[in-house]
């Protein structure tokens, strides 16, 4: 049993560390003391930092070299994030673009698209957003209703609405899943598009969450006309293209932040500060339970890296880490607020944001129920629930839904 790097990894780590040592003074401060507060300033500074990382080969490092990456493996990319964490500097700004959408374009895009979009994406010159989810298409993503109609001149006209769109307020482009043929079964009639966010008819509206902040957006499309060459991965192949994005999403979320910074040691400090709480049996029991599970997630992360290094795909422990992390953090937030009292809910308390953020995180990137379904079916081989939408044209399905809802 060995937590150490291989000689090659150690060498790579030294390189990364040396670069960070020399350049971390240029990193923007986004959290804690001296942090930037103005959103525009944050955007400019974070964008510039991504550009610097890209030039050093530390952004999109798993991308192939021909598109500006380093062609390194997933374990080395973990080394980069570990070193950045250690150095106390933020990662790139456009995690969604570089981590998920870029790899999708690399896998399915045309050569022209790759040449045009990947460079500016990597350097943070053009930020991207992912426009998949809709008000009525979340867990059942293939139910998207945003409609793209082919025009006679080859262009497309978009109408519909997307939601949970991170970074849409300053994104240059979005990757959008739209329905192009409603008269065939729902998984088959979709197409993936690149949409310029400054196109006429695109409206971005912040979606305020419990905390009061708007980290997500709604995006509306009213007769938005987009070019013929904006299709990614072929017409009516939107589902296949989207699955690639979702695969990279799991990898990005899993390897990037298996604990989202919710560490037991951090929670311990808040409890220690109250001597009564620290000696209270019930507090200790609650805390001990959630701390031990969070500790498990740290080691689950190491297991995943060890598996990747062996050329294996990380196992089921990987997919369930999010469920454990979120539920433990929810418990920790409740426990700490119980100890601190209403002050923990004040805007300037370090706990208020976490407490407000977690209910949404429970559903983000797949609800807990969908995750349990997926793991039960794909990992444990349990049969799926019977479905009522298989093989039925999407338009017919929608008609049935309307009928059912009005009955």
């Amino acid at each position, binding site marked *: *049993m*060995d*937590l*150490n*790097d291989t000689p090659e*990894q*150690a060498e790579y*780590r030294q390189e990364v560390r040396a670069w960070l040592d020399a350049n971390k003074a240029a990193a923007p401060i986004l959290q804690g003391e001296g942090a930037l507060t103005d959103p525009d300033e944050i955007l400019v500074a974070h964008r510039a930092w991504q550009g610097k990382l890209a030039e050093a080969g530390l952004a999109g490092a798993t991308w192939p070299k021909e598109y500006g990456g380093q062609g390194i493996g997933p*374990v080395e990319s973990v*080394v980069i994030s*570990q070193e950045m964490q*250690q150095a106390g500097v933020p990662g790139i700004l456009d995690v969604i673009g570089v981590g998920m959408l870029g790899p999708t374009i690399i896998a399915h895009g045309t050569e022209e698209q790759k040449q045009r979009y990947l460079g500016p994406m990597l350097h943070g010159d053009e930020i991207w957003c992912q426009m998949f989810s809709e008000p009525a298409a979340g867990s059942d993503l293939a139910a998207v209703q945003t409609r793209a109609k082919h025009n006679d001149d080859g262009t497309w006209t978009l109408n519909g609405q997307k939601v949970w769109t991170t970074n849409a307020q300053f994104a240059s482009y979005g990757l959008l899943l739209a329905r192009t043929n409603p008269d065939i079964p729902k998984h088959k009639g979709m197409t993936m598009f690149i949409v310029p966010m400054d196109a006429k008819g695109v409206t971005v509206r912040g979606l305020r969450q419990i905390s009061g902040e708007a980290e997500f957006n709604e995006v509306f499309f009213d007769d938005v006309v987009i070019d013929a060459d904006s299709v990614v991965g072929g017409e009516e192949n939107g589902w296949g293209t989207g699955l690639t994005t979702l695969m990279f999403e799991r990898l990005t979320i899993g390897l990037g932040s298996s604990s989202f910074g919710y560490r*037991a*040691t951090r929670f*311990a400090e808040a*409890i*220690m500060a109250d001597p009564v709480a*620290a*000696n209270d*049996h019930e*507090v*200790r*029991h609650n*805390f*001990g*339970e959630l*701390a*031990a*599970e969070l*500790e*498990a*997630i*740290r*080691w*689950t992360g*190491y*297991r995943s*890296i*060890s598996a990747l*290094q*062996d050329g294996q795909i990380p*196992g*089921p*422990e990987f997919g*369930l880490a999010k*469920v*454990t992390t979120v539920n433990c953090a929810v418990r920790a937030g409740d426990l700490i607020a119980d100890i601190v009292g209403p002050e923990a809910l004040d805007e300037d308390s370090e706990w208020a944001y976490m407490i407000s953020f977690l209910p949404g995180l429970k559903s983000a990137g797949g609800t807990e*129920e969908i995750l*349990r*379904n997926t*793991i*039960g*079916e794909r990992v*444990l*081989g*349990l*049969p*799926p*629930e*019977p479905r009522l939408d298989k093989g039925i044209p999407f338009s017919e399905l929608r008609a049935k839904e309307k009928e059912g809802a009005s009955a």
Partner: protein
Amino acid sequence: MNLGLSDEQQFLRDAAADAFSRVKTVEAAREAIEDDSALPDMWPTAAEAGWLGLLVSEENGGAGLGAYDAMLIAQEAGKVLAGVPLLGALPASMLLDMGGSDKTEAVAAGELKASWLPACPPSSIEPRWTVEPVEGMARPDAPAATVDGDTVTFNGTVGWAPDAGEAELLVVIGADSDGNPVAAAVEANASGVTVHAGWRYDATRRLATVTLDGASGAKLDLDAEQIARAWYLVQALIAAESVGTMETALQVCLDYAKERYTFGRAIGSYQAVKHGIVEILRRLENSKSLCIYTGFAFSDKPGEIAYAASCARSVAGAGLDFTARQQIAVHGGIGATWEHDAPLTFRRAQLNRRLVGGHGMSTDRVADELLNGRGPVVSVG
């Protein structure tokens, strides 16, 4: 980074599985509830396999292996509910070896059966060495120890000690008048030793309540940290054993959920059933991760042994508790009858929950370590 098993560890694990497969352990677990003699004596199995000397240094005739290796055997034992005396014998052999006992070689060779009497190290809310109460919630002080040269005399009672009933040599932990722990090897037939052996609920667990009334033995040269290590070793072994039991139960649940049909479809297709089974998997995988951490702490981070082993016992203990009930639920009524093995898992989980501090004490210890600034030191690369 490499957290996989070495070739030697795979061999050790396979050999354990093979050794247990030659004894009908699950059948024995059921029959022994009614007929005490149905439980096979697993001391010879442990001796033949070399497990009694597994943690003993090579110069004292042992294999010189580590806690994680022992945990692999415990995991295999847990899979088939084998009543092998690991919880008593392994910590005893480790303390005898570290403490310089002249009995170590005989114990490692399986010629002398030794067992440890559990003693729990102090915490910030229970700042003294304690032992299992025979009854009730209050934990008694560890037996009072009087040291006279190389001899220690004990007075006190230790409840519910695994495997101690069959032992010829008891490794006893007491506390001197200053509250410091003292360990000694006491012959089971020495004057002043009374052993009440038996079992409760889970017939595969042989337990004993031992009363020491001026019983003397040879002092072991051990410090408090070494003595505490035995406690955490046993927490780790129970965690690993629980992992094995959960693995078997998960497979049994899966098989049934795929073949049992209600309302025209397999019950495993219903989300209520599926999500419950996935919850077993979640707890199992978390427990496995913590067992790896515990093995790593024993071999590389001695300062984190208390924390890691307590995390493992806490999560695996609660995990087995959940699994045992979920297994019954998945199987419906039949799961609560002797027609099925699920009640044996349940009996194991019920007793485990209260054994050697119960997993609740480990949960408290996790908090204690963190709240006193003794959490993990995380460094990478």
